[in-house]
């Protein structure tokens, strides 16, 4: 029983670490246009790094049929738009100051983050 209890507590610890504490690597906006794929309930890549002080474009390609994935919101930038299915959608971002900007669907089940450095 002790073993099971320890395993349970470790599992809870792993949940906290994996979902909240771990910071995955960010994809950078390189020379090739970065396309964020909206598929299987996720944005991929979900964390992107952008340069500060200049307007940039990010592109989304939605392959997920779920209606949740249709809306894209970047609340801090007051951007709300719809992503058409199987089509590339370009979102223009203004020149941003350094910081973190979350983007997500209406229900926040699809979540991503833009880090501006």
């Amino acid at each position, binding site marked *: *029983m002790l073993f*099971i*209890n320890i395993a*349970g*507590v470790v*599992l*809870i610890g792993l*949940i*906290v670490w*994996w*979902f*909240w504490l*771990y910071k*995955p690597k960010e994809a950078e906006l390189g020379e090739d246009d970065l396309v964020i794929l909206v*598929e*299987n*309930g*996720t*944005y*991929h890549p*979900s964390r992107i790094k952008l340069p500060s002080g200049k307007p940039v474009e990010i592109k989304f*390609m939605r392959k997920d*049929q*779920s*209606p*949740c994935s249709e*809306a894209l*919101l970047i*609340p801090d930038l*007051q951007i*709300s*738009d*719809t992503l*058409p*299915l199987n*089509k*590339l*959608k*370009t*979102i*223009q971002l203004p020149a941003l100051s350094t910081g973190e900007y979350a983007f997500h669907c*209406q*229900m*926040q*089940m*699809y*979540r991503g983050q833009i880090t501006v450095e």
Partner: protein
Amino acid sequence: MNKSIADTAKDHCDDEVVTPESSASATSSMHQELIIEGAGCASCVGKIEAALKQVSGVNQAEMNFAQRTVSITGDANVADLIKAVEKAGYNAKSHSAETEEDALDEKEKADQAYYKRLMKETWIALALGVPLMAYALITGEMNVNTTGEQVVWGIVGILTLGVLIVSGKHFYVGAWKSFLNHSANMDTLIALGTGTAWLYSMVVVFFPSSVPQEARHVYFEATAIIIGLIDLGLALELKARGRTSEAIKRLIGLQPKTARVVRDDKEMDIAIDQVLLNDVVRVRPGEKIPVDGEVIEGHTAIDESMLTGEPMPVEKAVGDTLAAGTINKTGSILFKATRVGKDTALAQIINMVKRAQNSKPPIGRLADVISAYFVPVVMIIAVSSALIWLNFGPDPVVAYAIVSATTVLIIACPCALGLATPMSVMVGVGKAAEAGVLIRNGAALQTASKISAMILDKTGTITLGAPKVTDVLIAGEYDEQTVLQLAATLESGSEHPLAMAIVESAQERGIETGKVSNFNAIAGHGVQAEVDGKTLLFGNEKLMRERGIDLGAFVQKAQALAADAKTPMYFAIGNTFAAIIAVADPIKEDSIAAIKRLQHSGIRVVMLTGDNRDTAKAVANKAGITEFFAEVLPEEKSKKVQELQMQGEVVGMTGDGINDAPALAIANVGFAIGTGTDVAIESADITLMRGSLHGLADAIAVSKATLRNIKQNLFGAFIYNVAGVPFAAGVLYPFFGLLLNPVIAGAAMAFSSLTVVTNANRLRLFKAQEH
């Protein structure tokens, strides 16, 4: 801070959708078409064709001059073709540009296909789950004790795996991808819940001795039914969601597909995207106006109700503006296209409504914060619940632990919480648009529902904004004709509505205006200028007193006029008082009823005007308003808004959107009131497309109804999760012996989000009070 509608339109253009298909086909397709702009003569044809033929890959380029299109065959990139045309001095755009309606059709097709898929998956899962459940209920036998039972349940287990793969693959793939992405969503909960139940059942089947005898129960029926029910819930939700966007579909449907243009003296029907700026368009009775324009021949009545909510048709004659999507009722007209494509008022309205429908009011923020942590927290609760059952539960502890953990994972519904706000906003904003009320965003919607004081600008808001000269009281040597001639000459340089009334009155009497020099507007007081060498002064009592002009007994006469809701103005010629000219601006027919509606809903209505106190008082009395600010200089309007805010009021400010821009911006909610479709949507949170103040009462009523709906949804979703999760974990078991069945949890979860969407759809039935 706020963008104009033109900016919004521009943003949309910048966000041009480029399809991979179109870019791929751009280099491989054999035939493509471009629309050419700026080709005014037949000789342009050769030039454009030659320029296109120079592009590598082009075999043939043929221009249809009448239709201003050019068809190209060969392997050439669209961008190169457009560049070549531009180099030749013209503008070109791809004919294949997707219209809003095409996009909508495509979305509906995709949704329909997705719905069919979900329903198929539902039936497959239920086809296995329902008979299994019936067997369990009838026989009560779902245990594995003999080798025979091992074989039978083993086969059922493999069949269930098939169901999980066919009907639930999207949950498992989604959960796995999210996991790799360090995120968790509804898929994670469903996959973990059903996966745990199936895995445990398989352990019971293949290694029965590893679990105590009383815990050798299988849960294949629960697994299959849960997957089936959740698929069913998603399918029904998809249908219900379709209804939430009816308003935007209706707006998009207003756009006609073709237009009849007159080119080279010939009338021809062309596709709407081929209509160019300054094209002459013919519209017959009963037809829709295809693009925005200005009437150049004929007169008619236009039904603008679909855009403005104004039920009465509007008379249009030469020089009047027309909006795309409205319906020509009576006469045949010719008009010049002034705005086409994405620049039309209709296109801009569609854009604004779409954006507003996706934006969130602050009330949804708490739900957003909870949503962000929800799934991992539920996972932790499930593990903790299992541990508690294992440590303190009755026998068979393993079975209880598995059931409680599975049920917790299944019942928790982040979707209901996440959908609560956006679904209501979607329906509410659409409903408002149907009534001719354009709400900029969710925040404006929420604040509008809390407005406690409403400031109404007098001119053009409460009144028609078209003042007329009612009285001319002569004081000195000059007769009425001369006074009006000089006053009209003086005011011909001013754009003030009162000045325009005097100029119009003079024109009506056939009086011609002369030349004016040294014109000087004295803000809040009046104007001064020189005409025929005489210094003319026109304005209020303050101005005359400052200049030391004696008004005699005319002050009382002016007061009498003001008490009759007229605006008296003093006119002096060469520093001698000459006349009082009184102007009245009639109150709009329905202003009084609309103001009553606002007051009945508990709003403190305050009138604001630059007029003198007496006139303001008379107008306010007529309109049923007890509080007013008079003699307010234009720059003081925002101060008055702040004054009310200091008193703790949530202030709405209604004005024409141009002169009142700073006050509208500083108010908690700024309402720009329009006159038909030609409305200026500058710096307003909410735009009323029609001139009636009923639009204002409608806007507040719809925002209150939407907020009430959001609160119901949020409350329902919170209570559902707050009560459901502990119940599933088994908190009632020690007291009442109650533990939730995972199948019931699956049904509850599937229908919780459907309930939220259905409740939001109730808003579609909202009707503004009869007026």
